């Protein structure tokens, strides 16, 4: 059987293989949301690219199942230590491992950030400003919405209003509840997207079949993950994706430039991959961990850390889950969990006692996840748990997606303990601050109100967090940020960071689309700079201009239809 990437695509063969001693142009650490897009763009532009991925190269037909427990291996399950006043759950909650990374198990909600998200400090006096504006990123949002592609409403009214290339999905039970509750309270809502899930077949990818296992890896091939959207095209254009390659450290030469990475293969053998430039795309825990673990003479506190901000300003979004029990049946396991939302509370509202806001989105916990929520939200155990679970089909669930601000004390450091490779593991500290607590309290109550307005007879909630971003933030000032607006580290001219960790703030939008849009923008910059990256220490901050000719096949649309 050929190696399958969804039911209709196979792994392009043969794949380019670079020797360790062969200096590639770009070595990308992590083949996830950002790494997949970067590898695809850079390979198309003719660079010699290898992406090192710590996890396996999934064969979706063989390795993936329609089963919660059986999908454990999709997550980053290696040890990490989590603490602080509000410790983050990691693993399945937010961390992927394997080609495609987190995009394999994301729910695929693809809202854009709002224009205000890029000017949080200027507008609200909290958080930070981005070194770029929404308008710099907008063409890349549109481009990636076509490349995933995104299905959603013709008119998305919040932030910068826009439409979507594919039509919305049919309404499921939980989406119906959200629309009903919002309508009752006079709030606008949208349904059927925006999601990176196909509502119609696209190239060699089938449309969604509404089986609800988005978070377990979409075997159907309808949900976008870079494993099926960008990696096949990257390989076809000469990139190598090397699985089971855990990068241990980045090597710095005497002249202050990096020349490759040390990685450990699945047999535990150490290799040195030579490279003319390195891009770290390992996400908000592993990226800072790698930079910190790469400390060397002259960089005692980690690579690219002259500012001391590597690992700092880590963010997760408030992700309280609100569940409501209805007299009628809902069957929340049908349709994509990511389905309907409202962003009516997204922006700062002076009448509230906190800055920034939140979104309200549908979620679709399958039985094991739902049981855990009932354990947490209701204190259910024993016979009470058995009883509430027998009503599984009567419940609907929404998620708060709330903006928690970037704080210096929320951070990734190195713990004393070591993992199976002998590398120090990450220690993650997370504390809620006053603004965050007020926002969560308000958001939780508002979402419970929406659930009740929809007709729920019994409404409960569970405190939790969703997503990760930050911990290697971008900025104009090298003393307060790790990378510039193109992801280039301030300290080392041929070392880049490109993933969710460079976000200075996070808004109330799921980060996946933004991460991929930023990756496409960084790729355009690198392509424009050409060989300069490999020789010159000069930092050219001029805009590269967007390349529309580097998209994967079947994604050359003219624009995103919208009703204006």
């Amino acid at each position, binding site marked *: 059987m050929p190696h399958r990437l969804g039911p209709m695509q196979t792994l392009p063969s043969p794949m380019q293989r670079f020797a360790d001693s062969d200096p590639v142009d770009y070595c990308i650490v992590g083949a996830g949301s950002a790494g997949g897009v970067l590898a695809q763009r850079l390979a198309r532009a003719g660079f010699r690219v290898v992406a090192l991925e710590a996890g396996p190269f999934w064969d979706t037909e063989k390795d993936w199942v*329609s089963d919660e427990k059986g999908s454990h291996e999709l997550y980053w399950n290696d040890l990490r230590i989590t603490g602080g006043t509000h410790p983050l759950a990691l*693993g399945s909650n937010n961390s992927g491992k394997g080609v495609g990374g987190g995009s394999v198990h994301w729910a695929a909600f693809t809202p854009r950030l709002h224009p205000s998200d890029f000017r949080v400090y200027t507008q609200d006096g909290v958080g930070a400003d981005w070194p770029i504006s929404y308008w710099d990123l907008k063409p890349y949002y549109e481009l990636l919405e076509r490349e995933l592609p995104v299905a959603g409403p013709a008119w998305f009214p919040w932030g910068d209003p826009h439409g979507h290339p594919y039509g919305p999905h049919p309404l499921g039970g939980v989406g119906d509840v959200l629309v009903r509750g919002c309508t009752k309270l006079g709030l606008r809502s949208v349904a059927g997207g925006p999601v990176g899930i196909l509502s119609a077949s696209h190239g060699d990818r089938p449309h969604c079949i*509404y089986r609800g296992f988005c978070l377990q890896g979409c075997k159907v091939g309808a949900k976008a993950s870079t494993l099926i959207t960008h990696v096949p095209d990257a390989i076809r254009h000469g990139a190598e994706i090397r699985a089971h390659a855990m990068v241990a450290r980045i090597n710095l030469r005497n002249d202050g430039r990096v020349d490759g990475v040390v990685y450990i293969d699945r047999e535990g053998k150490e290799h040195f991959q030579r490279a003319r430039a390195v891009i770290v795309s390992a996400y908000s825990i592993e990226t800072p961990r790698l930079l910190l673990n790469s400390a060397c003479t002259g960089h005692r506190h980690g690579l690219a850390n002259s500012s001391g901000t590597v690992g700092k300003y880590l963010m997760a979004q408030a992700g309280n889950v609100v569940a409501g029990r209805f007299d009628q049946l809902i069957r929340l396991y049908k349709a994509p969990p990511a389905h309907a939302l409202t962003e009516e509370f997204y922006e700062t509202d002076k009448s509230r006692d906190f800055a920034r806001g939140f979104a309200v989105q549908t979620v679709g916990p399958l*039985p094991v*996840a739902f049981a855990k929520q009932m354990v947490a939200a209701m204190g259910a155990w024993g016979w009470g748990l058995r009883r509430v679970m027998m009503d599984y089909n009567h419940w609907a669930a929404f*998620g708060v997606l709330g903006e928690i601000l970037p704080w210096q004390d929320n951070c990734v450091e190195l713990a004393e303990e070591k993992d199976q490779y002998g590398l120090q593991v990450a220690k993650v500290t997370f504390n809620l601050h006053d603004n965050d607590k007020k926002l969560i309290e308000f958001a939780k109550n508002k979402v419970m109100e929406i659930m009740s307005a929809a007709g729920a007879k019994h409404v409960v909630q569970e405190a*939790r967090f*969703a997503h990760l971003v930050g911990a290697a933030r971008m900025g104009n000032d090298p003393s307060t940020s790790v990378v510039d607006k193109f992801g280039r580290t301030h300290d080392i001219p041929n070392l880049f960071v490109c993933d969710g960790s460079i976000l200075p703030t996070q808004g109330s939008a799921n980060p996946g689309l933004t991460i991929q849009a930023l990756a496409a923008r960084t790729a355009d910059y690198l392509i424009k700079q050409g060989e300069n990256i490999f020789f010159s220490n000069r930092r050219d901050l001029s805009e590269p201009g967007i390349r529309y000719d580097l998209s994967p096949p079947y994604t050359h649309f003219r624009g995103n239809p919208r009703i204006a």
Partner: protein
Amino acid sequence: MSRKSFPYKPSGGDLRDLEQPGYYAGYSTLAQKKHWEAATRELVTHRVDKTPSTIRFFSQEEADVLTAIIDRLMPQDDRASMRTISVLPVIDERLFTNSLNGFRYEDMPSDREAYRLGINAINEMALSRFDQSFIGLPVHRQELILKSLHDGKPDPEHPTWQRMPVHRFWALLMEDCVTAYYSHPWAWDEIGFGGPAYPRGYMRLEHGLPEPWEKDEQRYEWNAPADSLSELDEEGAPPEHSSLHGHGGTH
């Protein structure tokens, strides 16, 4: 394994020795397995047919105490013995292979040590409060001890809970129990979950309507044993556990 000693007084009729508890009589996810793709079919049927029988991580004594604990946390006295869902062997397997969930709270020991400490503490609490091992206690007294852990107020006190936050141990234990139970197709039948649905998919998304191969709900009065302490307390505020062990991202 489940001990059928519970004083069982259902007011809705005799609910013991059931082939299939819940409101979806005659519904079987496994009956649909010919419509599942091979990898899922193999995994799920293996789960049903090949429960690990040898305990490799826990000692026999630990396994006995933990079995009694699980019988209260995930009671199955209503199920026919041939239709009991294995929980302990699943936890034992996870700990034996040291399969982690990707993180450890800084105030917690490793999962392996947490189980050893917790089981021992619960047994010693039984001895100190009732002068009897946990296994030997009547169900009501077992529940009294477990309820005190659930409430975050261990009664009696035990030094283990100074070393390990009781709410985190409770969450760890409950999450492992529900993962074992609700990943079993017999539990899917009990709650009316559609189960694996690839490549066929669903066609009736709205109004909670069943697929042709699903069943409509047939409700009846279901009552937990009248004197059980684990019945839901609808009025009482749940303890604030905040985020627990690996949940599976929901959005």
